[in-house]
């Protein structure tokens, strides 16, 4: 696809629609390559057991990939401040949902060790059986 690089015009396009940025094809291609490499890294990292850090590492790699998409493919790097704030604030407020909900769940077990059983109270509620005998 790098064949298209010959008609790149770097820098800013016409200002009819306000300041906008035309990125170079080469840059897009580099980002794509980085994203594909990071996908391989994701799979590779999942093969190694880092213990409790597994989730953290997986999310970290995904966040790096997401940042590449956001900054370059979505042009946020060159976008207006307000658009940057808007998009970032969605992640910020989402993190509030995550933090409070998960913190409640995690500390509930400290409160009442009983919750660790986290399962059936009355015997009428069986787990939905993997009813292998009952073929559908």
């Amino acid at each position, binding site marked *: 696809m790098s064949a298209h690089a010959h008609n790149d015009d770097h820098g800013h396009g016409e200002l009819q629609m306000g300041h906008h940025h035309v990125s170079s094809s080469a840059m897009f291609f580099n980002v794509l390559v980085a994203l594909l490499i990071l996908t391989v890294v994701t799979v590779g990292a999942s093969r190694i057991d880092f213990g409790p850090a597994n989730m953290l590492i997986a999310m970290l790699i995904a966040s790096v990939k997401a940042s590449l998409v956001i900054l370059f493919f979505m042009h946020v790097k060159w976008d207006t401040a307000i658009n940057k704030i808007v998009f970032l604030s969605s992640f910020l407020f989402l993190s509030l949902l995550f933090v409070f909900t998960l913190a409640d769940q995690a500390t509930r077990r400290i*409160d009442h060790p*009983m*919750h660790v059983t*986290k399962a*059936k*109270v009355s015997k*009428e*509620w069986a787990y939905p059986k993997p009813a292998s005998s009952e073929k559908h």
Partner: protein
Amino acid sequence: MNLPTSFPPRIEETPVLAQLIQDPAKAVNAIARAKPPELDEYGQLPKLASTFDHVDGLFYFTYAVCIFFFVLILGVLLFSVVKYRRKTFDQPAASNSTHNTPLEVVWTVIPLIIVMIMFAWGFKGCLDMTTVPQAASQNTYKATAAQWNWTFTYPNHPEKSRGEVWLEVNKPVQFLLESEDVLHAFYIPSMRVKRDVIPGRFQTVWFTPTQLGDYHLFCAEYCGDSHSLMYAQVHVVTAEEFAKAPWYTFDDSTPAKAAASGESIYKGQCSACHSVNGVAGAAPSWAGDKGLFKKDGDKVVGRERQVVENGATKTVVADEAYIRESIRMPLAKLVADYATKANMNAFGPDKLSDRELNAVIEYMKTLAK
């Protein structure tokens, strides 16, 4: 599309505004027997019957602060409206001040200090209410909530009680709360305790009853049709009286006593859905033309009724065997009028012993006409 409505919902299907009759179950509900608890000296809260006096303290403190600020706001407002009323259409304002920094700082900082006091006070109280002391955990009751009744299991007694619970005065108690179906809430206003009962896990609540008497226990989390009828009474009694296990009144030594015991089981467990006056409610009535038993001379025999079994309608006689099956396995034969509203939980031997079941049948027979 098959909506998951076959289990546990027991909601009668009533078209909106179609049935302007009263719920027959109400007449026999324990609520009618309830004696109102006393109010405290200010008439705002029920008289405190537990050790959680910090609730009342903070409540009245906040109340006083609120009244102070309310009177302040109201006073300034009324004074301004009277004094600065516009008399001619071109009257300008008496002042054009747009801000006053010291004043704004004052009315930011003072409320902040006050609410932080309230927070600390409230949190300290809350810690007290959620930290179960040793003495209470050694006196653990179990309260089982189901649509729409309460069953209580005692720490040192094999018998359960339904719709009523007895506590020993001045002895800390912990309730282990479990729900069989949906959310409920365990609420005793006089004790200042409330806790949601969540299916799938245990919740706990503790308190020390300090006043002898009878108190309301409400379900405070909406749980469906008869939410408002999900009532129990808390009896706080002396240690001597408690030792007699007053909830254990079951006696089937004679048919009459068995019927009386059956009636009390009925009131605790069955009355929210089944009436005994022949009016159909959330579930079939036990009496009347479509009831269970009828008098044939001086004999009591079962009536015939239409039931649906495995999708087929048939006629059965409502005899002891049928009733026993209907209690143990309620969804086996459905009364024809209620076939689409399959709505009763099974009462296994753990909930209703054979002797208790027989007593209930004995009571049903006394309803025959």
